Structure formats: C-alpha cells, structure tokens
C-alpha cells in the first residue's frame, strides 16, 4: 500500500471561464492511486468541466491542474454520439486509442457483460449497451487514472449495481485512481473514498456519510435528498449476471433471488436509510422529482 498515497491528479484552486462566465471556480481536488473520488451536484454545477480540467481537455483559466507524467488514462465521456456514416464495430472501438490484444479485449467485454456484442456495429447498440462498451474500452487498457462521467446512464438497475461493483473491483485490482461523476444521488458507492459536492464551487466534501449529513448538502438538494442518499454497500451474498440471473455465494444460479429462498444468510444490501430497496429506488425519492 506504499504506492496508495501517490497523487495522480491534482487541481489547485482551479477555475474555468468561458464566454465571460465561470463554469466552475476554486476547485481543490486530489485523486490518489487506489482512490475513488465521486463528484455530485445539480445540472450545470460544473461536474463535467471539473473532470475535463482534471483530464487536461480544458486548461484552467485560474489556478493549476497537475497530472503525474506518463499517466495511462481511461475516459468515459458523458456523451459520445457516433456518426451514422462511421463503420465502427465494438471490436474496433475498443482499440480506438491504445493497442489491445484479443485477450485483454475479451476480458473487458466479458467484465461489462457485452462479450456477445463484440462484432456488433456501435450505432446498433442501445444506450445501456453503449455505456458498457465505453466502460469496457476504458478499463481494457489497464489505466492508472480513470474519469467516468455518469458511466451507468441508461443502464438497467441490476446492471447499474453490477457496473458499480465492477468499478470498485477494478480500483482494487489495478490500484488506479478514479474520478467518478454520479448522476444518481441514490447510489453513491460505499467504496467511494471521498464525495465532492459541487455547485459552481465546492460546497462540501468528505466521506460519503459526512457529506450526506452536512448542512450544505441538504441546502443544495433539499431535505428529502438526505433520505434519498442511500449509500450502497457491496457486501452481498449474490451477484447479478448480465443475463438477469443471479449467482449466490454458494455457487448456485437462480432466475431471481428472494430473502427467504435459502441462499441468503443475511440481507445483501445494507441501504443507509432503507431508500435503496433491492427492487429499485422508490419513485418520488429522487431529488429531481421535487421540482425544487
């Protein structure tokens, strides 16, 4: 764990101005090896801009952005639209920026659950499948530093959990630093080391539990959001397979899982405020629904 403290990317009082408007200002942020930093915040709060500052796509208008040299970067942008005229298979897309051997590629596609789509044309993929392909591409190169801008958008709920698990497993296996932008307050992983709450500037930051209880967070998202911030703990006794079936700790595979089906010794999901049920989030607990 000696290397764990190595800072991969540092933003110091970084701000970015475009068309005489500050998109984000005064951001201090460090992503270290083996660390997951999660950015949350409302629309237009500068989450993606902060990520682009960290990646060097934007040069900070004020302050500084530092990356350690020779960093192998994996990036999942928020939005990628592939032009209809581009003949691009998933296989070719995987090799977009780096050389990969077949084994690395298949392993990454397997991990994100789309191994069967390797030869499909990218434009024929559904939104969720394309997100999986983008994540597969980012992890296949065994990056030192990954930026995941809403990596699970459009992915179905059980797949979402599986992908978040995959992300923390990759962090553990590769020891890479991850900057994660979450579109969904419901699921801020327990694996996250630090949550940074943005709204044009840093409102508050700290461990997921600390942020959930802070006054700034409540002010930004409203009281109901506090109840909604379920901190997802991944101490399950079962895994959701890409095809929808469930593999239990004892190795059996079933179509569904129920607390009393004999495969569970204790509750797999330990939601923070019980807002996060196994079947999905309760409608109405999303802060976006408040109209606030």
């Amino acid at each position, binding site marked *: 764990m000696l290397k764990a403290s190595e800072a991969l990317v540092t933003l110091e009082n970084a701000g970015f101005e475009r068309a005489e408007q500050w998109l984000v200002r005064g951001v201090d942020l460090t992503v270290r090896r083996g660390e997951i930093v999660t950015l949350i915040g409302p629309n237009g709060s500068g989450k993606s801009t902060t990520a*682009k500052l960290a*990646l*060097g*796509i934007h040069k900070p208008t004020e302050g500084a952005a530092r990356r350690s040299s020779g960093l192998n*970067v*994996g*990036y999942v*942008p928020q939005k*990628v639209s*592939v*032009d209809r*005229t*581009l*003949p*691009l*298979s998933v296989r*070719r*897309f995987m090799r*977009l*920026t*780096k050389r990969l051997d077949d084994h690395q590629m298949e392993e990454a596609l397997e991990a994100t659950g789309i191994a*069967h*789509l390797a*030869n*499909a*044309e990218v434009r*024929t*993929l559904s939104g969720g499948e394309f997100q999986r392909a983008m994540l597969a591409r980012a992890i296949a190169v065994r990056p030192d530093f990954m*930026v995941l801008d809403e990596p699970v958008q459009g992915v179905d709920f059980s797949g979402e959990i599986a992908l978040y698990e995959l992300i923390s497993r990759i962090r553990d296996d590769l020891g890479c630093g991850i900057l994660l932008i979450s579109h969904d307050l419901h699921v801020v992983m327990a694996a996250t080391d630090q949550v940074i709450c943005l709204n044009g500037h840093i409102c508050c930051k700290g461990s997921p539990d600390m942020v959930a209880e802070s006054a700034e967070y409540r002010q930004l998202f409203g009281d109901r959001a506090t109840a909604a911030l379920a901190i997802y703990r991944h101490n399950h006794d079962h895994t959701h397979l890409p095809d929808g079936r469930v593999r239990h700790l004892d190795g059996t595979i079933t179509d569904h899982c129920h607390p009393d089906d004999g495969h569970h010794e204790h509750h797999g999901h330990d939601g923070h405020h019980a807002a996060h049920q196994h079947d999905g989030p309760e409608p109405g607990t999303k802060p976006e629904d408040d109209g606030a």
Partner: protein
Amino acid sequence: MLDDFFTRAVVAGVGVALVAAPLGCFVVWRRLAYFGDTLSHAALLGVALAFLLDLNITLAVFLVCAGVAVALVLLQRRATLSSDSLLGLLAHSSLALGLVVLAFMTWIRMDLMGFLFGDILAVSKADIGIIYLGGIAVLIVLALIWNPLFAATVNRELADAEGMKPARTNLIFMLLMATVIAISMKIVGVLLITALLIIPAATARRFATGPEQMAVVAAVVGVAAVVSGLFGSLTWDTPSGPSIVVAALVFFLVSLSPLAGLLMRTSRPVQGEKS
C-alpha cells in the same frame, strides 16, 4: 486507340483517386464536405496568384489552401460566427478574389473552364510526377496519423484525454486536404474536387464493416470512376471532371440498388449485425 495524352490522364487520375478516397472517408465521417468546397474554391485564387507571381501552379494552390485552412482554425477560435458562415465567407471571397485577379491580367490568355472543370489535355509528365510524389507523401502521413485522426473523429475529447493530441492531428489533416486539392485540380477541376472526395466514400459506406476497409473500397470505387469517366470523356468529347463525377454518381446509385444489397448480404453473412 489510346493516345498518349489519354494514357497520361488515366495514370494521373488513378493517382488522384487513390489519394482522395481515404481522405474523402474522413471528410464524410467528420461532415467536412463544405470545408472541402471552401478549399477548392480558394484554389482558383491560388491559380491567379501563380500567374501573377510566376509560381508553379500546384505549389501556389497548396499554399493558398493551407493559408485558408489555417485562417479558418484561427477564426473558429475567435468564434463570433458559426463555422458554416466562416466557410462560406472564405470560400466565396477567395473565389471572387481569384476571378478578379485573373480578369486584371489581360495579358494572360488562359482557359478558365479548364481550371473549373478539369482538362485532360493539360496533364503533363511533370504533373504526373507531382501527383505521385505528393500523393505518396500524403498517404504516408495519413497512415502515420490514421489512429489518432480516427480517434479524434469518433470523439475529440476522448482522444484528447487519452493523449492522442487531436489539435495537432487536425492541423496535419487540413494540410493533407490542401495537398490533395492542389494535385487533383487539373484532373477534375476546382468546382468538382469535393465530389471526388465524397462520392467514392459514400459509395463504400454500404459495403464497409470497418473504417480501414471503407477507405480501401472507396479507393477502388474512385479508380473505377476515374477510368470510366475519362473513357466517357474521350468517347463523347465531354469535359473530364464532370465525366468522372457522373461516373462516380453512377457507382453510388448502383450501390443503393437492391442488387448491391443482395451482393453484400451473400458476401458478408450476419457480421456487423447484432446476434
């Protein structure tokens, strides 16, 4: 049957088609058709300056096109006008400037139609040398930047984040475009160069499962269009450039027909489809 000038034209045209096709794929993928048009309009200003300053025409056209490309990048950075307005401004003002400068040089008797629509008779051995030397240089550079350029075409920010330096790659690509326009002007003419870039690539799209494959198919289509177009031009005494473009159009229409779809389905079973 084959007169000497005609052999020269075919050899030159094939060289141009081989270079234009892979670049044309990028023009199609990146939606740069109007950029190609702008550069080729500017080419006429290059011709005028070549006469005025007694320069080699190909060199002058390359310099003017490269200058317009760089001007476009700089103007885009200032970003007070949208890209298509800037392109229209550059295209037509350089074309107008070229025509005005040519009109002033009353001592020069030149065939404007030849520059606008191409002229088989104008192809000399020196032209063939320039086309092949320039063309090979363009293809080598394109092969070197292929991966970063393609990555930047799919998503510029992704390419930037993962160290592919898209700004530099884009600049090199624009210079390659300027080169291709300079060397292909005599064959197809200023007004029709963009067609030679786009139509073979558009024809190839239907048959391609990968970007590299699409470039190769486009090259084959381009060569076929040049050869058949030039034969048509000789047979019916039509201008070379339009004849080549009409031939390319015929190939494109054939690629849209059900016959081509049938051919494609038998040669490429299920691949590229979701299982």
